[in-house]
């Protein structure tokens, strides 16, 4: 009587009726769905973190898994998009956190820190990703930085066995030779790279393309070629005295400083004076300053503009400041003062900020007659890099960058490019994203001979105002344990120590799950009409009975339910 539809005819005869008004059936015959003017639909939307991640990570997804103590699943999910979570969990500039809706409530979710824990978990437990059906096409990747590694990884996942040609002795690009180990320990990088190599990636190190091996050659031998050679040519100061001894490039400095002793070209760490001066405001400048500090120096950083305009990632600037490194803002070098071709001082000029330039930052203008000198034995130049393009056919270049379409295809069909070589100096995660996209494009190309450009419609991510925050509790972000200043100066040990699993769970639980159902049960629990059916991994509307009151939509904390007008 309770779960079946049974209609009692109004034509029942006296003898068939009960003695008084005693019910004979339930109300299920009464399909109240016909009352509806608006119809709720489950309509998952894009969380802003996912929308912002250059490598397209499903951030909300892995936070949900971590919250539910499913670290292995979280690792698998992250690895669908990013081959290097342990690396990115350390060096990424995490634009996701900037866009995180939780910023409007209290503090953004510590996505970066959780990512690191997931990456480390995968390494610690030797997790593997599934590899697709074997594909026979040969693919050459030039350059084993994040862009090249990412492409190789994604191709390997699809079943290819790509070959990486790397000029250096180690893979990793800037991760290996640029970013210092107190930020990214070499063993972590190595483990993550090794796990990718194990997937069937062939690696040829010490092979500089353009020397004995040429792109055109590769393009003939291989079904497709990817240029992922980065941007490591350092810009010059173009001031008198620049050639003197004691003036070095940041990348060279970091390269040397980053090498384990036995590998370093000279066999020992680069020597710098205690009063070393670093010129620039980017990541390379910060890393150079902090590396110098760890070598016992008292570095000074000179930057043309102010702190606000510094291009380095904010975390790095903060850490550099925490390490009490001196900054001289609004000053530009004009001359290296030398003695016996040896640097003794740097002459600078004061600057002031004018109107905005093409990068949107205010242009520094020299203040006449404000020259001053800083005593120093070593000057580290860190004023920017650009790709080395001499080995690349001119037809593929534009403005000294490799020119590609959105999918990474150059003017020559089977030659693709990704990473800093295409964009100029950018970031690790962008290089990874570009590597992923070009892998997908290459896959399509080698299988079909062309890359179809399906326009992905622009989806607006869910914004804070669209959420129902009544169900969220205020909770401070779980802080990241780290070394104190004293411990940092003495060693090149990693500064940040990482979350413990329970901390990651707590932090992941702060995620609002913007636009994505996280099975909070609200729609089910608040339905006055039992029209939300709770299934194992989803909810369904029972439109037979849903009256369209809309409570589910307004009580969904995540803006997953939309109301659409019922056409009658």
């Amino acid at each position, binding site marked *: 009587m309770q779960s079946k539809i049974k209609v009692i005819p109004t034509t029942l005869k006296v003898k068939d*009726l009960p*003695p*008084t008004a005693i019910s004979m059936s339930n109300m299920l015959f009464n399909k109240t769905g016909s009352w509806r003017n608006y119809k709720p639909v489950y309509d998952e939307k894009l969380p802003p973190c996912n929308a912002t991640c250059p490598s397209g990570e499903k951030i909300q997804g892995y936070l949900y898994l971590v919250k539910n103590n499913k670290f292995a699943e979280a690792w698998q999910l992250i690895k669908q998009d990013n081959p290097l979570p342990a690396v990115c969990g350390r060096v990424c500039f995490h634009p996701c956190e900037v866009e995180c809706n939780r910023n409007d409530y209290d503090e953004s979710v510590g996505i970066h820190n959780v990512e690191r824990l997931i990456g480390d978990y995968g390494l610690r437990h030797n997790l593997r990703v599934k590899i697709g059906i074997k594909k026979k096409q040969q693919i050459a990747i030039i350059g084993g930085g994040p862009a090249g590694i990412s492409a190789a990884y994604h191709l390997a996942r699809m079943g290819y066995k790509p070959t990486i040609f790397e000029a250096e002795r180690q893979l990793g690009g800037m991760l290996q030779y640029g970013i210092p180990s107190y930020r990214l320990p070499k063993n972590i990088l190595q483990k993550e790279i090794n796990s990718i190599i194990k997937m069937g990636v062939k690696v040829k190190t010490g092979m500089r393309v353009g020397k004995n091996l040429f792109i055109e050659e590769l393009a003939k031998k291989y079904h497709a070629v990817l240029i992922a050679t980065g941007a490591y040519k350092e810009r010059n100061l173009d001031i008198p005295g620049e050639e003197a001894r004691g003036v070095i490039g940041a990348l060279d400095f970091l390269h040397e400083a980053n090498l384990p002793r036995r590998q370093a070209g000279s066999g020992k760490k680069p020597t710098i004076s205690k009063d070393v001066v670093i010129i620039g405001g980017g990541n390379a400048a910060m890393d150079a300053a902090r590396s110098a500090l760890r070598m016992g120096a008292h570095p000074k950083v000179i930057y043309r503009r102010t702190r606000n305009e510094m291009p380095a990632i904010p975390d790095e600037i903060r850490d550099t400041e925490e390490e009490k490194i001196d900054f001289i803002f609004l000053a530009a070098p004009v001359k290296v003062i030398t003695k016996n071709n040896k640097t003794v001082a740097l002459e600078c000029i004061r600057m002031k900020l004018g109107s905005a330039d093409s990068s949107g930052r205010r242009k520094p203008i020299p203040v006449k007659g404000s020259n001053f000198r800083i005593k120093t034995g070593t000057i580290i130049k860190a004023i920017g890099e650009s790709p080395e393009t001499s080995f690349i056919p001119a037809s593929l270049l534009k403005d000294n960058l490799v020119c590609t379409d959105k999918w990474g295809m150059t003017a020559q069909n089977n030659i693709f490019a990704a990473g800093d070589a295409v964009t100029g100096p950018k970031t690790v995660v962008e290089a990874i994203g570009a590597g992923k996209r070009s892998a997908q494009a290459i896959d399509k190309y080698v299988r079909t001979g062309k890359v179809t450009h399906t326009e992905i419609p622009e989806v607006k991510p869910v914004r804070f105002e669209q959420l129902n925050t009544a169900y969220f509790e205020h909770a401070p972000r779980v802080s990241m344990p780290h070394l104190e200043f004293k411990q940092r100066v003495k060693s090149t040990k990693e500064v940040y120590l990482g979350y413990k699993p329970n901390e990651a769970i707590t932090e992941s639980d702060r995620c609002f799950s913007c636009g994505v159902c996280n099975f909070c049960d609200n729609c089910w629990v608040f339905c006055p009409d039992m029209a939300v059916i709770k299934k194992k991994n989803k909810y369904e509307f029972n439109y037979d009975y849903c009256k369209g009151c809309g409570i589910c939509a307004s009580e969904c904390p995540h803006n997953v339910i939309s109301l659409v007008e019922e056409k009658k």
Partner: protein
Amino acid sequence: MKEVTTGNHAVSYGAMLSRAQVIAAYPITPQTQIVELLSNFCATGKLKAKFLKVESEHSVMAASIGASLAGARAFTATSGQGLALMHEMIHWAANGRLPIVMADVNRSMAPGWSIWTDQNDSLSQRDTGWIQLYCESSQEVTDSIIQGFKIAEKVYLPVMVILDAFVLSHTSEVIDLPDIKLVDKYLPPFKARDMMDMKNPRAFGGLVTPDFNFELKYKIQEAMNQTIPVAKWADREFKRILGRSYGIIEAYKCEKADTILVTSGTITSTSRYVINQLHAQGKKNVGILKIRMFRPFPAKEVVAVLSKAKKVAVIDRNIGYGVGGIFCQEVKAAFGNEKKHPEFFNFITGIGGRDVTPKDIQGIIDYTETHKKPKEDIIWVGLRK
């Protein structure tokens, strides 16, 4: 077992012997003694029942309805104002087809305040769907309560057992208290209809649209029709097991009567006394028709008795204002489609507890015999004009 008891205590005994399971009650003179003795029975364990001392008669009936619906044998008693307060729930009980038995000690309605007898309180409830039994003696009261349950639980209609205030309720008589084992034999435990079964739960009393209400109301009338044979059967069974019977009406010494008095309640006893004397004197042309069951009204039975008479004197201890005695209306109506009918005389007497004496009855007989037709529609007996 013989027992000297008042009409009120006779009610309590009847309920106790019927093994009522839930008793909800609220005190009102002249009913209070019923409640008092019943609560004593419950307190001493003589009766295993839940006694609900609720805060009003309205609640009395609501609680009784709840109890009956949930499967208990429910009993209560009230009077006058209390019955009137119950009115809404009186309908609920009958429309809900719940076999509740209630004693009503007739009490005149206020204002001004009265605690004395007349039948206007119970007769105001005549169209609610309750079966009504009017009693003339304490013995009949006890027996009618027991019979009441027998009938109610058969036809699923509630039963009101009615007795006069003071004249019966507070007057002691010797009665033969039935043996409870025999009562148990007569009245097995109440088995509620399975309508409130937990395994097959249903809703009771919801909204009824015109699609069904007509039929459901018809069923109440159908049950009323059944009640006459069922009540006769219940009475016969009572006779078989407990040795007494009353009939739904009683024609007393009507064999040679050309004048018949129609009576109810204790006026019957008084009339019996007068008729017995007349018959002893050899005057055998006057008899009595006692109406015990007023609802359903046993019209066929009444006509069968009265159609032999030339004159019928209906004695009403009640009045339907603007019409006349209510019993008289019903008796006349019973003859509605008959070709021939006796001459009807409507006497109204005893209202508000005024004593009705053998002299009054003799006066009624005299008036009837000396008049070919009544001079007035209503003949007021004992009125100081």
